[in-house]
């Protein structure tokens, strides 16, 4: 077999200057191949992108909350983008606790002032940053964890009165959603 191939190669060489020929051919093969790969990669995009949130899902993305009915020390849960948002009207004591924590004791250091617009109101997404359960602590009778904020019953993460993780497997603080005050007692989330 090998011998045969060698022979054939030789005759080829004599006939059509294979070096030039093969490099031209190789260039054509490779550039065609590259275009096919690049083209296939681009045409995959609409398929992948169709899985992302659709326009109607995105359009549902704003929620208004009337704060006037929430008394001090109370919390309400509102729904935003299909998930719960905790709105807590914090007491003086809770605000003080949240502000006086030393950074070194926090898993993910963040000042309380970075997490609120008006320090009376704490607004966080009520989804545990570990694996997405909803922490307890919205009702008066709920166990609020060792730091007076929230406690996730799934895998035991504790959050403080600023929604920061203090203990347990959660890697991050409860997320603060984008929101703004429309009036003194009205916010819009999203």
């Amino acid at each position, binding site marked *: 077999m090998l011998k045969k191939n060698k022979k054939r190669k030789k005759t080829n060489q004599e006939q059509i200057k294979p070096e030039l020929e093969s490099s031209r051919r190789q260039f054509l093969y490779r550039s065609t191949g590259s275009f096919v790969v690049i083209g296939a990669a681009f045409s995959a995009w609409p398929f992948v992108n169709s899985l992302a*949130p659709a326009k109607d899902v995105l359009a549902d993305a704003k929620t208004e909350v009337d704060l006037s009915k929430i008394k001090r020390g109370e919390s309400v*849960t509102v729904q935003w983008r*299909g998930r719960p948002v905790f709105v807590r009207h914090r007491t003086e004591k809770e605000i003080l606790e949240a502000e006086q924590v030393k950074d070194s004791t926090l898993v993910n250091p963040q000042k309380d002032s970075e997490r609120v617009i008006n320090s009376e109101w704490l607004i966080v997404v009520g989804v545990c940053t570990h*694996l*997405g*359960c909803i922490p307890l602590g919205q009702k008066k009778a709920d166990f609020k964890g060792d730091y007076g904020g929230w406690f996730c*019953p*799934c*895998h035991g993460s504790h959050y403080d009165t600023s929604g920061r993780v203090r203990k347990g*497997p959660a890697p991050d603080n409860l997320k603060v959603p984008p929101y703004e005050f429309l009036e003194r007692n009205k916010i819009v989330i999203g």
Partner: protein
Amino acid sequence: MERKDKLVNWIDSRLPVFTFFRDHLRDYQTPKNLNYFWNFGSILGVLLVVMIVTGLVLAMQYTPHVDMAFESVERIMRDVNYGWLLRYIHSNGASFFFIAIYIHTFRGLYYGSYKSPREVLWILGVLILVLLMVTSFVGYTLPWGQMSFWGATVITNLFSAIPFFGDEIVTLIWGGYAVDNPTLNRFYVLHFLLPFVILAVVFIHLVALHKAKSNNPLGIDSNKSKDNIPFHPYYTIKDYFGFGVFFLIFFVFVFFLPNFFGEPDNYIPANPLVTPSHIVPEWYFLPFYAILRSVPDKLIGVLLMFGAVFILFVLPWLDKHPVKSATFRPVYKQFFWLFLLDCFILGWVGSNPPTGHYIYIGRAATIFYFAFFIVILPLLTKFEKVQLDSKENRKVD
């Protein structure tokens, strides 16, 4: 030649179906010493057909929409003729599928069925196991009860541990900002599609099996052995007997204990604003769930959980001891039973809340699980001596 044979020959010379069935279902040379642990391959094949057939008729009654999914399942249970039977066969079938596939896998582990020349056969088997896990996970979401919803939430959130793109990937999986209608809809499509992918991989698994031929309790190379017998009638009849025993037990559960493997919480409709106080996955995921929870770091926990399954892919290169069967490997045999016990311990830890001593037992069991593959098997490959004076002593290839 009779007319019938003429027709058969005419077809067979153009499409060799008859030759195929003769070679692979009748004359296929099989070791004569296979024990009952070799029944589970064909049992799994029958279960796959049972699941596809019950799934097809259930799909004709089910509605994949968050407002109607739960009620359509209740309608199947109450109003559809024999709907209760079809659904209980399908839901218990999932559990029995895992019972059978785990026995089948541990059979391979004990008798060294992953060793040369069966590495690809083994890898295809692990691939089927992974596909089955994905299929059952998305399928469990469909009834849209509390456990469906929160199981789906917790498992999809595992991907948020991926560095940099984690949240974007999870949003892409959900098609929204939480598990919601788009998620349910695509999980339904996947649950319909994947069984047919499994069917295709099972076929390739069998191609690989018929190339390397069956392993056996002694680990003798059956391509060279003269102690082979044709598959039919010897193993067809033995497989039928196995079906009888297995499905007798299966239908005890279908008819008398249909919710034995289920969670009562899944008869509460999904509520995205209330997490059940104790989320547990289906029993067949418990050992992996225990591994996830025994690691305090989120990313490492997720990696180890997936790693616990994926490490099976490289098993042929972790255990390169020349002897296949544990029958002739006295030390490996001890560790095999310890490993099996370890999997049960992990399962038990996974079903309990992650507090107190469960955490420490879970951590110890997790360490042993990985040590078995990464430390013990390579060491045994180097140092373990073969024992030939067992009861079943014969020539070892």
